[in-house]
């Protein structure tokens, strides 16, 4: 009796027969790319926690200010710096304004600035970086030079200028971020496109006569989409931080509109006497940045094809 690998006797093997359908069978169930991503994301508890927190904060920011009897700008100069109480769940600030409402209204502002301040520059960057990478040559060189130059001018100058011309508030701030923040994204996308352009399937497509549009939509976009989405998500904490920083040095959101950065700024001044006025916005900022980071990380892991099980 001859033995094959695994030590099983050869005559115990039976010919299974040839079959057309069976030879076409895939070894595992077919599942689309995005369904797979979703599935893996769902399983990632840490990332899901992040997402839940984000949604909870966002929802609260929309609902809570509407339910409150105080407005975010309503002052009560005879009840300043009050501690948390049943009347004012987070207490009042130095002008007697209710901090509970201000914190949640500020959430709206900070989240809006954070999310749009990340998405819009990303999209602009994708557009410009994509054009630069796809067409290459002179176009690429000019655009890259332009980026090199613009990146060297301090962001402060742009922001002050824009604020002075358009006015202050969340929208001008988002515009300022959009104008000054697309460069990183553009560079990344450009690099990515340059890499993909040289891949064989793109080459094959071109030889077969596919138009620019077809190549872009069928090949380039799907391959970059995942990475762009991840960088947008991870860009939100950076935008939130930027807003906080700018408000902290007095250049961001102007009163009486609250934002977390502003609340942190106001809270720092009284930190040693009324610590809650700084702790609350600080925790909100940190928690939100943390959640976006965790979710973004999870998203990136989910999009990584090498982790397919």
């Amino acid at each position, binding site marked *: 009796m001859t033995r094959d690998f695994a030590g099983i006797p050869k005559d115990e093997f039976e010919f299974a027969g040839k079959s057309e359908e069976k030879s076409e069978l895939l070894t595992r169930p077919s599942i689309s790319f995005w369904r797979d991503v979703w599935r893996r994301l769902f399983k990632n508890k840490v990332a899901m926690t992040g997402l839940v927190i984000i949604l909870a904060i966002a929802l609260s920011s929309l609902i809570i200010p509407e339910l409150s009897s105080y407005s975010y700008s309503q002052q009560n100069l005879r009840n300043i710096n009050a501690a948390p109480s049943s009347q004012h769940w987070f207490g009042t600030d130095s002008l007697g304004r209710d901090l509970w409402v201000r914190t949640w209204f500020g959430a709206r502002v900070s989240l809006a600035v954070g999310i749009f301040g990340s998405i819009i520059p990303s999209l602009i960057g994708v557009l410009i970086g994509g054009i630069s990478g796809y067409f290459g040559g002179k176009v690429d060189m000019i655009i890259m*030079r332009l980026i*090199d*130059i613009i*990146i*060297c*001018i*301090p*962001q*402060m*100058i*742009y922001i*002050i*200028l824009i604020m*002075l011309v358009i006015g202050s508030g969340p929208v001008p701030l988002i515009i300022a971020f959009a104008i000054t923040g697309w460069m*990183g994204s553009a*560079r990344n996308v450009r690099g990515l496109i340059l890499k993909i352009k040289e891949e064989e399937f793109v080459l094959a497509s071109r030889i077969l006569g596919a138009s620019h549009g077809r190549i872009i939509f069928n090949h380039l976009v799907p391959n970059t989409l995942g990475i762009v989405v991840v960088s947008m998500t991870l860009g939100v*904490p950076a935008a939130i*931080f930027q807003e*906080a*920083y700018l408000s*902290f*040095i007095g250049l961001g959101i102007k009163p009486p509109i609250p934002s977390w950065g502003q609340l*942190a700024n106001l809270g*720092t001044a009284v*930190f*040693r006497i009324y610590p809650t006025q*700084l702790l609350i916005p*600080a925790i909100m*900022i*940190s*928690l939100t*940045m*943390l959640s976006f*980071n*965790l979710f973004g*990380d999870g998203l*990136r892991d989910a999009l990584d094809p*090498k982790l397919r099980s």
Partner: protein
Amino acid sequence: MVRYILRRFLISLLTLWLLAAITFFLLRLLPGNPFQSDQILTFEMQERMMNYYGLNRPLIEQYFTYMGNLLQGNMGYSLKYTNRTVNSIIVRAFPVSADLGLRSLALALPVGLFLGIASARKRGKAVDYLCVVISVIGVSIPSFILGSFLQYIFALRLKILPMAQWTTEMHKVLPTVAIALGLLATLTRIMRASMLEVTTQDYVKTAKSKGLSEGKIIWSHEIRNALIPILTMLGPMVASVLMGTFVIEKIFAIPGLGLHFVNSITGLDYTMTMGLTVFFGAFLVSANFLVDIAYGIVDPRIRLAK
């Protein structure tokens, strides 16, 4: 290679020149007057001062005068610190900011890279989770809030480190740590992601199948290639360290450039702002230039690419 370097150098110069020009005109677009302060100056006095400093002459004329002086290394006198040249202020304050920045980088780089590598290699294990937690927390707490907390705890309450100023080594600890933590966190995350990306590449599998030792693989293949994205980050990171030190410098009373920077923009000290912008710009341009050269050395594809 030489042609590559030369080309990058010329482009750097062009960049610097354009930067100066754009900033010059942008600054003058800002409304307001550098001579006004809390004590409101009368209109006549304001105009007198503007004329004295030549600020009412045609803008183009001012531009050429300024650029001419700049080429000779003369950045003029500050409009606020009336008897000090912009050069002297920068020369005095820059080393302080640089000291703070370099210390933070020196602390953050090795620790961040090490943690990134360690957590990538032991992916999914306890070490990895710990590193991720540290790095995510570090990235989520803004440096200025961290700085205030550290100062409050270690200087005011525990009294083991000085509160402010930049004199002895002990004074330098808290501000450095406040900045380094944020940097460290970012570096860890990037290095980890980069290492994971590289480890699954084909050339690593090839090296393994060739029978190379673990250590050699890690060093010559994985880490070297993983460093490329870090290099890209280095330029802007250095820049942001210098910029972001402003609040830390304010809280810890450190006499660096950060304070001058924001004050000169909002106070419309044109000469000072121009000087600082050109200075930072030159810095960034040089940093990018050096990174480009490093790229050329590390990645032959880039050198040879058209």
